[in-house]
């Protein structure tokens, strides 16, 4: 594992609490962050909705979406179709209408993107851009991009959960490795190193989730030290703890990144790149053969 950015001054002989402080516990924002999931991004109201906001079909579609995605949509958005159904017949509607365009637009976008295929954000963007250099990004890429932007509030919420729960989760895993809790001085150096590795993994996981990019997860390797510390088993235990602490929707969002983390950390579960796997039995061509 790469640990270059972890606090180099960590003293393995210090108590757990101090050690955990060294892992940037003080870096986390308070629960009341500067923006919450209830604050909507400033998406421009789409022409589609600007033209169709009076139509019952638009309200019906928004209502169906709010029902089907209710776990992921903040309450004010979920009750929006109900409000609209009442208000659009009100004499005050022309004055109220502009206030509803943006949230209804957002709801429609969510409906559209939730109904289409699941997001493929595990392909690194630098690779996608390099593939399309000199051309335009594909419609699928653009769709992934909008889906990512729409899911950002959920990602941010989950990122903050990871940040807030990191210590508790790692302690739970350490308890399965002999740490009895309370007596911090009883933590062995190996357990401290394991805690450090687990924290690094969780932080990479959080960053990948937040950025919608697998790159931070691909920087880890599973070396002899990690094997000796029992990191693969500890990651399985951590996965179970994390899954148990999150809602089904949160885990669904996190799961692809978790799988990637496990695949990166455990060579036995990592699929070989296709080209290498297929060509493994054939000798590599010489330069002369390649250019013949």
């Amino acid at each position, binding site marked *: 594992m*790469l*640990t*270059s*950015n*972890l606090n180099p001054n960590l003293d393995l002989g210090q108590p757990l609490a101090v050690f955990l402080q060294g892992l*940037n516990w003080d*870096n*986390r*924002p308070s629960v009341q*962050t*500067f*923006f919450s999931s209830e604050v909507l*991004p*400033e*998406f*421009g109201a789409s022409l589609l909705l600007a033209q169709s906001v009076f139509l019952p079909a638009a309200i019906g579609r928004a209502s169906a979406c709010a029902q089907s995605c209710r776990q992921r949509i903040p309450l004010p958005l979920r009750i929006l179709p109900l409000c609209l159904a009442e208000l659009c017949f009100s004499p005050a509607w022309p004055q109220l209408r502009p206030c509803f365009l943006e949230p209804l637009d957002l709801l429609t*976008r969510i409906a559209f993107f939730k109904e289409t295929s699941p997001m493929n*954000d595990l392909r690194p*963007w*630098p690779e996608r*851009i390099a593939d*399309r*250099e*000199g*051309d*335009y*990004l594909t419609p699928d890429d*653009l769709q992934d*991009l*909008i889906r*990512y*932007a*729409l899911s*950002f509030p959920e990602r*941010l919420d989950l*990122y903050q959960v990871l*940040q807030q729960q990191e210590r508790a989760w790692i302690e739970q895993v350490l308890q399965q490795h002999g740490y009895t809790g309370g007596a911090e001085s009883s933590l062995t150096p190996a357990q401290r190193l394991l805690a450090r590795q687990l924290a*690094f993994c969780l*932080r*990479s996981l*959080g*960053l990948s989730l*937040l*950025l*919608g*990019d697998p*790159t*931070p997860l691909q*920087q880890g390797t599973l070396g002899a030290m990690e094997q000796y510390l029992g990191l693969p088993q500890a990651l399985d235990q951590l996965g179970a703890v994390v899954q148990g602490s999150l809602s089904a929707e949160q885990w669904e969002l996190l799961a692809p990144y978790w799988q990637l983390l496990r695949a990166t950390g455990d060579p036995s579960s990592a699929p070989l790149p296709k080209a290498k796997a297929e060509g493994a039995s054939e000798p590599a061509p010489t330069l002369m053969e390649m250019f013949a």
Partner: protein
Amino acid sequence: MLMNSSVAELMQQSEGRYLRPDELKTLHAYVEGIPKRVRLYQVLQAKEQELVDWVMEKFQQMMPNLPRQHGHLAWERCRRDLIMVWRYCCLAMLLNDEDYLRDKLLYWLETILKSFKMRDQCQPAYKLMLDSLSAVFGPEESESIRPYVLLAKSMLVN
């Protein structure tokens, strides 16, 4: 996520730690702009042909002797270069990243134009491209792409 150079730098710098509130705020602002930029990108893409036709028509009238100096493929090459510059400008706009345009295209193309002593002859084409923005696009699309076309013009032919 589509990363520009500052987000990529943020990712590198934050290895092994959580993002600070100010960094999260920067990231949030960047992500917030993505849907709008995607919409603009799609409009710019859809009207590429119209824009290049507009530029080429006027450029051919201004420089009728270009094929005599640079061969019968001169117009074709000119169109190809304009399309290439336009597409890189669009992607740079989507990324919100002038560095991408500079690093991936302009430093290279600048050298080519200099070495072939083409800067003076190409100058009207990029001026026409700038003029075409308000002719082909609405104000929002035009203003979104203008800084990138200006950058391309200033590096390639000024």
